[in-house]
Structures are given as C-alpha cells and as structure tokens.
C-alpha cells in the first residue's frame, strides 16, 4: 500500500507544480523573462486567504475566490505600473528580471511586516485539515481538491489556448509580439490578461501551500526555483512542457528522499536544472 500512497502523493504534488509552472509559463512565453514577481503573487494569494478566511471568517469558497482574484490583480498591477514601461522601452531581460526580483523582495517584506515572520497557517481549526481515503491511501482534503481543481484548470487553459480568440492572440504574441501588434492584435490588453491569469495560478498555489504546510514571507522565493525548473526542464516553449517538467521534478524529489533523506530535497531542482541546461537547454518538449 505504501507505493500507492507514494503514487498519490506524486500525483498531488505533481499537479501542484504543474499548476505553478503553467502560470509561470504563461508570462515566460509571452514577455520572455523570468518573472519572479510570480512568487509575490503566490504569497499574496496565500496571505489573502489567511486574511479573508481566518481573520474575516468568510465562507471558504468565497474567501478562495477573493484571494485568487487579489493575487491576479497583484500581477496585473505589477504589469501596468512596472513591466509595461520596461517592455515598451525594450529593456533587456536582465533589467526586467532585476525589477521583478525587487518586486518579490518588497512584497515578501511588506507581508512579513503585516503578518509577521513566523509561519502562518490558513486553517482555522484542526478539523479543517480533513483527510480523504482513496483505496487505502490518505490525502489531505486540500491535496485532494487540488488534484481536481488543477485538472479542471489545465483542461480549461488548454481549451482557451487552442480554441479561443484570446488563446490565438496569446500564441501570436508568444511567437512574435511585434508582428502580432502589426496585424492588429491588442498586445497590451492580451499581455495584461495573461498576467492576471498567471497571478490566479500563483495565488491558488499559495492558498494550497498555506493550507498544507503554512507560509512564511520567504517562501515566495523558495517556491520559485522548483517552479522555474519545472517550466524550463519540460520545455519553455510548450504548453504541456511545464506539466511534464513538474512531474519529472516531483519524481526525482521522491527518489532523493528515498535514497538520501528529506533534508536534501531543496538541492534537487538545482541539480536537474544544471543537468538539463547542459544536455538540452531548450527543454524536453519543443513547441
């Protein structure tokens, strides 16, 4: 039964990183820089959930909705006030990277000032952390719902990407944003929507993390490295790459825990990244 439990765990945390990598990949492909402010949206989502659900005691689904919308708005506003000006100036990706790093650092410091530096847990009481029994293996309720939610989100996004106007506009901008603009695609509007959607994914990740193991202000950066690795390893240019990368990451992490012990898990993403950049820098899947 232990293997079934591990399998379920791999599915749930694979789905978690898929969701994170999916949202990250959206901005990565369209604006072509590592948007570290994504980690800020992750934190905003988690802490807003804490605020709405635990401090204001709002009904759970409503609190969830409010908090992911807030984190979406957060990235949207980051785009409007910071990244748009830099992108218009055709700044190098390094400039955007530094700016987004600044946003992440400032966000985590501000959240730390408001909510404190200690771990913050979203659940109100112990009974909030229920478990679900699936054929003998147990999962947290939040992990169980995460699997379902992430699946729905992935299906929705893939439909949106390949069958709607917005999806076509997104793909055109990813391909060549200048030509896309020339043929009349509203670049600014599309990119700001992409940032909003990306923020929603990050916020959902933050909520799940807050429910499962609690948030600290530093965890924004902490979760960025595995997310970036999942997005890069699977193939940055491909929609499905992030999901593939996420599962590879999680499986290697589990193997590391099995062979070396849990304290070395943090080194795994880095090792995968280095190997991958040597062997196949463009990622496993092409577009």
């Amino acid at each position, binding site marked *: 039964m232990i293997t079934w439990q591990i399998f379920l765990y791999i599915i749930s945390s694979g789905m978690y990183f898929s969701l994170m990598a999916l949202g990250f990949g959206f901005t990565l492909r369209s604006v072509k820089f590592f948007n570290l402010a994504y980690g800020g949206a992750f934190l905003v989502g988690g802490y807003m959930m804490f605020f709405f659900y635990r401090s204001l005691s709002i009904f759970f689904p409503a609190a969830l909705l409010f908090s992911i919308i807030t984190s979406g708005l957060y990235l949207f506003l980051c785009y409007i006030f910071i990244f748009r000006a830099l992108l218009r100036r055709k700044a190098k990706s390094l400039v955007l*990277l530094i700016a987004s*790093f*600044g*946003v992440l650092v400032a966000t985590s410091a501000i959240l730390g000032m408001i909510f404190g530096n200690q771990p913050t847990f979203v659940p109100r009481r112990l009974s909030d952390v229920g478990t679900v029994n699936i054929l003998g293996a147990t999962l947290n309720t939040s992990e169980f719902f995460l699997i379902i939610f992430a699946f729905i989100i992935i299906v929705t996004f893939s439909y949106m990407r390949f069958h709607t106007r917005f999806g076509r506009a997104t793909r055109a901008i990813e391909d060549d944003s200048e030509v896309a603009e020339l043929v009349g695609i509203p670049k600014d509007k599309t990119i700001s929507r992409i940032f909003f959607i990306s923020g929603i994914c990050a916020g959902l990740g933050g909520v799940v993390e807050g429910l499962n193991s609690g948030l600290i202000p530093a965890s924004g950066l902490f979760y960025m490295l595995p997310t970036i690795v999942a997005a890069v390893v699977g193939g940055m240019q491909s929609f499905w790459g992030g999901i593939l990368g996420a599962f590879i990451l999680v499986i290697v992490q589990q193997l590391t825990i099995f062979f070396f012990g849990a304290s070395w898990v943090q080194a795994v*993403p880095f090792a995968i990244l280095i190997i991958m950049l040597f062997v196949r820098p463009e990622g496993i899947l092409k577009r």
Partner: protein
Amino acid sequence: MEYLYHILILISMYGILALAQNLVMGTTGLLTIAGAAFYGIGAYTAAILATKFGFNIFSTLFIAPLAAGLIALMVGESFARFRDDYFMLATLGFLMIFNTVARNWEDFTGGSYGIAGIPKPHIFGFVFDTPLSFMWLSLVIIMIVTTITYFISRSSFGRVLNAIREDEDALSVFGYKTSTYKLLVFAIGAALSSLSGVLFASYLTFIDSNLFTVNESILLWAMVILGGLAKNRGALLGALLLIVIPEGLRFIGFPVEFAALLRQCMYGLLLVFLMLYRPKGILGTYKL
C-alpha cells in the same frame, strides 16, 4: 565614537562585497546572486578553522579566499557556459544549496545554532579586539581589495571582461575563450567576497546559517546598481549610502525584526525604481 567605528567597519565589509560583486556583475555583466554564498563560505571557513582547529583569524584571511576561489572554480566550471538569465538562475540555485548545506550539516556548520566564540585576529602579540583597531584592519583590507579591483579594471584582462559584457559572441569570434574569462572573474569575485566574510565572522564573533541568505545578495545588487555598474567608485558609494541611510532607521526606534523587514522592503523597491527610472545608477556609465 565607538558607533562611528562600527559604521566604518560595516561600510568597509560591505564595500569589499560590493567591489567584488561589481567586478562580476558590473565589469563582466554576469548577473550573479551567489555573492552571499561566498561571503558565507569565507565566514564559515574562518569560524570553523578558528574555533575547531585553533587557527589564527589572520591566517584564515589567506586560507578563506583560496577555499572560496576553489569552490567558485569548481561550480563556475558549469556556470561559465551560461549567460544572462540562466547564469542568474544557476547562481541562485547555488546559493540555495549553500543555505541548505549550512543549515543541515550541523556537525560542521552548527546549523541554525551557529558557531559562537570566534576569536579576534592577532598578529605578533597584538590583538585587534578594540573597535578602533578592528576598523584599521578592515580599512587596510578594503584598500587592498580596491587596489586589486582597480588594477583589474585597468588591465587588458579587465578590457576583455568589459568586452564580454558588451558582446560575448563577437569576442569569441576573435578567438577569446570567453568561458575561461568568466570562470576566472567569478573565482576572483568569490575570493574577494570571502575576505569580507572572515572579517564579519571575527567582528561579530558569532555566525549562523540565517546570515547569508538571498537577502544579503539583494542588498549587494542594490548597492552596486545604485552606485553605478562597472564603476569601482560606484560600488563603494552604494555601500556607503545603503549602510548609512538604514542606520538612520535605528534612531526612529522600530523593533529589530520590523526594521530588518523595512530595510528589505526598501532594497526591493529601490531596485524596482532604479530599473524604471535610472538603470545606470548614480555614477554608472554602463546601462544594463
């Protein structure tokens, strides 16, 4: 007066770090975030050698750069092939690994309990245990580091580094093996940063794994970019400003933890505003 010495010691420690960071980030244009890692490696080398093996801190001022330089050569071997964003990612990963090792390898690094009782340096019976004497020691070391970075940026080696920043592909067409140069400058930067780590460990007499995190690297970024990239004077100016101004916050009387977060928030916003309105920094000529 003691407080003034303290500030000067801090400025020279961060000045060394900023000069080293500028060498890699400004002169060569490699966006590294591993500054805090080599700073930490220097501090741990000094602390472990001094407390466990009874070394004089003075001798660790020579051993730590060697150790940090060697580690930088080993990891840099793979980093030197990357550029721009990927270089930054790789160094971020390295910093994360360094933090993991420092936290988990408790027999050696003391983990989050840290290493206490690090002695002051002594030479020929003279102990640098007063703030004034320690200040002179730090000033001498920052002078040495300034001289080294000055000569590097004036030499032909420095010109190659500048050329790597401007156009790496063009330079490799002329037959320069750019990855070797990048590796070398990365190792030199690491060795110089570790000097500051030795001073820091000995000055504070206590280090733990929470002192060398990514926040320190962010501070270095902010210093180097604020002062002006690729200018040694700029790095020193950045270190001066970003030590003195936050010290003012101390007098307002915030709680320690809040003040630390407030500073961190300042550095983050500073980076954003610099990128938006003045990517050159105060003295810089090179625009990112």
